[in-house]
């Protein structure tokens, strides 16, 4: 002892010294030196040196993250020591470092058994603690009988720990239920408060995993709920009832009264909150209880303690879906919580507010939230914006009635300084533009306001919004009163801050504006009166159909001026688009002046413009993610068969068929576009402005040839993949057509499709990835465990006979007239199916299901029956119960 103490002192002294030194030298040197010492000492034959080395190592592992898996065998050696202090060190090291894969795990089974059987209660408790932490399937199986013995121990300390260990043993070795369950249940009536706490804790955990199996124990739990004065136990029992009441609604009525009583009586906030949570989550149909709970929630909400405020909000958010009135009653407090300092409280309040959004109050709530967003820190501000965007766009803007209002709200969001949700806002602007025809006028108005503000161009988070606004103003330019102004905004000098991809959209929109303006100009029946009279035309205040020579030429001029510098830009996309526009202007410019003089309505220029308008007039609608599936399968197309040997059989004959099939599979939009483009090509031949106009037939023929050669691959890729593939195909073809313009709109369309189909799956993925690693294990074990427990609780025929331990005596006494021979058979047949399935057959042939028995027992406790109320006799129970089981 003395030597070990001095050694220990030694360690800690050095460690303290190092702590001080570490500030200057860093501790890695000292650490590696001590590790060297430990590696030497741990091989010592002297057990006490060994154990102290192990203790040091455990310390380093716990606090400095040193690996100690290599010392597993030494830990097993130390545990076998007869001295308690060594044993303790050994067990501590094992609990700390062992896992299911530790190779020497098998070696400790006997040691554990020996210590579990020890007469020294401290050794027993060390072994129990160790088992509770490292218990594997094998250990649990091998030591079940020891645990069973200890459950009956006369020493409270041992019994208590044995109960705690049962949880782990059940989890790992389901058959242990048959052995130990009866003793566990017996302890529910223990008079020792420590034992009771332990056993309630175990049942709380078990019930969470599979409530249905524990319904028969409801009377025992009820007794604890009524009798116990220990808040901790009460909390656990409440958790149990919260679960049980969900699977057996009639329990709710039974426990509502005692819970209300608790709520009125208790001073413990934790217990009070548990009562509230139980009521709002499981007993929300019990009116009195719910009213009382909501009243208590209100107390929480106005409390100065932030914890209580937060929990109050949390409780409200549980009750919100079913009883919105509870939230509405406390709306003021919820709104006030939005300005709380604590981000937790704010977030909870935000979620709560979003949960009560409907089409009537959406504008009011959004208004409140927007005001808070402006004042909040960037993080919460974006949280608010994201929540609004999410709530409003749900189910294709289900709750939005007034789209004009919503669009202006989106515009407002873009102006919040901290806004970083540009992507989503931009997406919704385009989405609404394509989905809601009536909102386009407002969309153009909002877009114009965004585009003409030079300040917004500096914030790159807003670029997706600006890109959407630019697209909308170009696409729906016919709604604009002032095309000139939009062109000006699209070409303002600060657009150089935009990313090339966005800039390309700006230029393309400019093109659309130009074409539209020209179209109006040329199609005007009467030549406009002398340009000299239209003074204000260029200011953009005159109506669209009054586009004059002067205004159109100044429009052409600013576009030319704005784009000529871009024709030499490095980015090919921007350059190409700029050149397209400039080329078009070069072609059309001199005709503009002619229009004034010639009076001819059918000029080449007007035809060219009409063709361009035709190109842009094709409306882009929203495309659902399942669009591809809706394309009818062409008759006679085999999708499931391997076509490998088809070529040999059919030879050349096959190919044209393949070609036409794949064509009919592609989108109609591509046909439309190619149609208008083709028209353009024919009529524009003399213009010779687009030199690449010879490409389509060329590329088309190349494509056709390629298809011919690899016809089989085309067929298979188009049938099996969804629209993404065929879309890519479309894009490829489009790419080669002269205007190269529809691509921008089309790429938007693509993005939209992706956005529409993706958000939900992404959310799901996040949840799965973040769970602690143990979760799946636990849940996968649930079903066999619940099966075992049901078997144990119901005392099955054959199994019961085979079992020595007749552990369901007390329950059996309540369960009369039950035949169990056939059950066993069904159980075996059902195997690992869900609990519902395994319980289902019981009702068919037994007079009473376990649930009924539990309830009957509950009802038979005379004081439970409220005076004057219908007695819960067995026949009526049977009747009421049936629907639930079938």
């Amino acid at each position, binding site marked *: 002892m003395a030597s070990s103490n001095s050694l220990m002192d030694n360690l800690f002294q050095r460690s303290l010294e190092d702590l001080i030194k570490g500030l200057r030298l860093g501790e890695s040197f000292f650490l590696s030196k001590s590790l060297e010492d430990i590696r030497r000492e741990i091989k010592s034959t002297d057990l006490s040196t060994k154990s102290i080395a192990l203790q040091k190592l455990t310390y380093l592992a716990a606090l400095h*993250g040193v*690996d100690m*898996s290599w010392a597993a065998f030494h830990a097993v050696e130390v545990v076998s020591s007869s001295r308690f202090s060594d044993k303790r060190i050994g067990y501590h090291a094992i609990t700390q470092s062992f896992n299911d894969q530790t190779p020497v795990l098998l070696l400790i089974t006997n040691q554990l058994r020996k210590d579990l059987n020890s007469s020294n209660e*401290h050794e027993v408790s060390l072994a129990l603690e160790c088992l509770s*932490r490292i218990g594997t399937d094998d250990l649990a199986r091998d030591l079940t009988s020891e645990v069973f013995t200890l459950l009956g121990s006369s020493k409270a300390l041992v019994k208590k720990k044995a109960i705690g260990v049962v949880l*782990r043993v059940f989890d790992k070795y389901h058959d242990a239920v048959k052995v130990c369950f009866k003793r566990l249940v017996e302890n529910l009536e223990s008079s020792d408060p420590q034992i009771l706490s332990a056993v309630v804790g175990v049942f709380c*955990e078990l019930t969470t995993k599979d409530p249905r199996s524990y319904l028969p124990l409801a009377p025992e739990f009820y007794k604890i709920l009524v009798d116990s004065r220990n808040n901790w136990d009460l909390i656990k029992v409440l958790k149990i009832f919260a679960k049980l009441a969900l699977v057996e609604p009639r329990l709710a009525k039974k426990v509502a009264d005692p819970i209300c009583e608790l709520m009125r009586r208790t001073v413990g906030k934790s217990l009070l909150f548990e009562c509230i949570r139980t009521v709002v989550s499981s007993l929300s149909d019990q009116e009195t209880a719910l009213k009382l709970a909501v009243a208590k929630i209100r107390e929480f909400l106005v409390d100065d303690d932030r914890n209580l405020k937060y*929990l109050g909000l949390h409780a409200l958010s549980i009750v919100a879906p079913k009883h919105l009135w509870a939230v509405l009653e406390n709306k003021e407090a919820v709104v006030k919580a939005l300005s709380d300092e604590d981000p937790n409280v704010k977030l909870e309040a935000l979620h709560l507010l979003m949960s009560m959004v409907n089409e009537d109050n959406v504008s009011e709530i959004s208004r409140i939230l927007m005001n808070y967003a402006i004042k909040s820190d960037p993080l919460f501000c974006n949280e608010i914006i994201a929540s609004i965007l999410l709530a409003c766009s749900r189910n294709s803007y289900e709750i939005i009635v007034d789209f004009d209002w919503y669009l202006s709200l989106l515009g407002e969001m873009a102006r919040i300084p901290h806004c970083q949700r540009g992507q989503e806002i931009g997406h919704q602007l385009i989405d609404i533009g394509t989905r809601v025809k009536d909102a386009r006028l407002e969309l153009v108005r909002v877009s114009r306001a965004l585009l003409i503000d030079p300040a917004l161009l500096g914030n790159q988070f807003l670029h997706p919004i600006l890109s959407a606004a630019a697209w909308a103003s170009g696409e729906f330019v016919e709604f604009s009163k002032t095309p000139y102004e939009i062109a000006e905004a699209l070409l303002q000098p600060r657009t150089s801050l935009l990313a090339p991809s966005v800039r390309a959209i700006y230029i393309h929109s400019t093109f659309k504006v130009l074409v539209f303006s020209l179209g109006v100009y040329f199609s005007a029946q009467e030549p406009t009166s002398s340009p000299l009279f239209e003074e204000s035309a260029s200011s953009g205040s005159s109506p669209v159909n009054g586009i004059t020579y002067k205004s159109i030429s100044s429009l052409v001029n600013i576009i030319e001026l704005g784009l000529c510098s871009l024709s030499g830009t490095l980015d090919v996309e921007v350059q190409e688009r700029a050149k397209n526009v400039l080329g078009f202007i070069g072609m059309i410019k001199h005709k503009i002046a002619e229009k004034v003089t010639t009076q001819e309505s059918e000029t080449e220029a007007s035809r060219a413009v009409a063709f361009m308008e035709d190109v842009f007039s094709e409306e882009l609608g929203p495309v659902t993610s399942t669009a591809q599936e809706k394309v009818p399968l062409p008759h006679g197309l085999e999708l499931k068969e391997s076509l490998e040997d088809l070529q040999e059989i059919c030879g050349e004959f096959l190919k044209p068929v393949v070609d036409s099939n794949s064509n009919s599979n592609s989108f109609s939009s591509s046909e439309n576009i190619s149609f208008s483009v083709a028209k353009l090509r024919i009529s524009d031949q003399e213009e010779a402005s687009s030199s690449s106009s010879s490409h389509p037939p060329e590329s088309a023929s190349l494509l056709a040839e390629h298809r011919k050669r690899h016809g089989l691959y085309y067929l298979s890729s188009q049938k099996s993949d969804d629209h993404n593939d065929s879309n890519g195909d479309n894009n490829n073809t489009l790419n080669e057509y002269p205007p190269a313009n529809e691509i921008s709109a089309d790429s938007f369309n693509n993005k939209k499709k992706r956005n529409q189909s993706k958000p939900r799956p992404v959310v799901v993925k996040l949840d799965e990835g*973040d769970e602690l*690693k143990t979760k799946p294990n636990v849940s996968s074990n649930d079903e066999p465990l619940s099966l075992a427990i049901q078997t144990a609780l119901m005392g099955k025929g054959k199994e019961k006979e085979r079992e020595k331990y007749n552990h369901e005596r007390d329950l059996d006494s309540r369960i009369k007239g039950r035949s169990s021979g056939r059950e066993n058979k069904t159980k075996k047949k059902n195997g690992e199916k869900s609990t519902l399935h395994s319980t289902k057959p019981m009702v068919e042939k037994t007079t009473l299901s376990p649930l009924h028995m539990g309830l009957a027992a509950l009802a038979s406790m005379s004081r439970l029956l409220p005076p004057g109320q219908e007695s819960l006799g067995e026949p009526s129970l049977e009747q009421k119960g049936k629907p639930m089981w079938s």
Partner: protein
Amino acid sequence: MIRFILLQNRQGKTRLAKYYVPLEESEKHKVEYEVHRLVVNRDAKFTNFVEFRTHKVIYRRYAGLFFSVCVDITDNELAYLESIHLFVEILDHFFSNVCELDLVFNFHKVYLILDEFILAGELQETSKRAIIERMSELEKLQ
């Protein structure tokens, strides 16, 4: 049930770590780092609960030490907050006016106390007196 309990100082040094679920060594370090980052910058007036992955962490600060308990999302926040305080009271009683260095030098005793307090992720003893008595019994065995 309790997933793990952590004692960390303000600098993020772990003073005690007990995991009631099996975790990889590297995962433990990640968890400790993340929990520290979550709690260290929170204002004293803020709530004592933070969400942590799919669970939640209930924490309490005593001087420069953070006591954090990670529990299931359905567990009772206030009860665990109280139990942290109870644990600190026990430590305080046992070491008579506990400080961080006590925990550093007596780490094995801290683990012993913790093992008396929590078993298999469940609180098994809520009586301060019982734990203190039990500890003095164990002390005698040393």
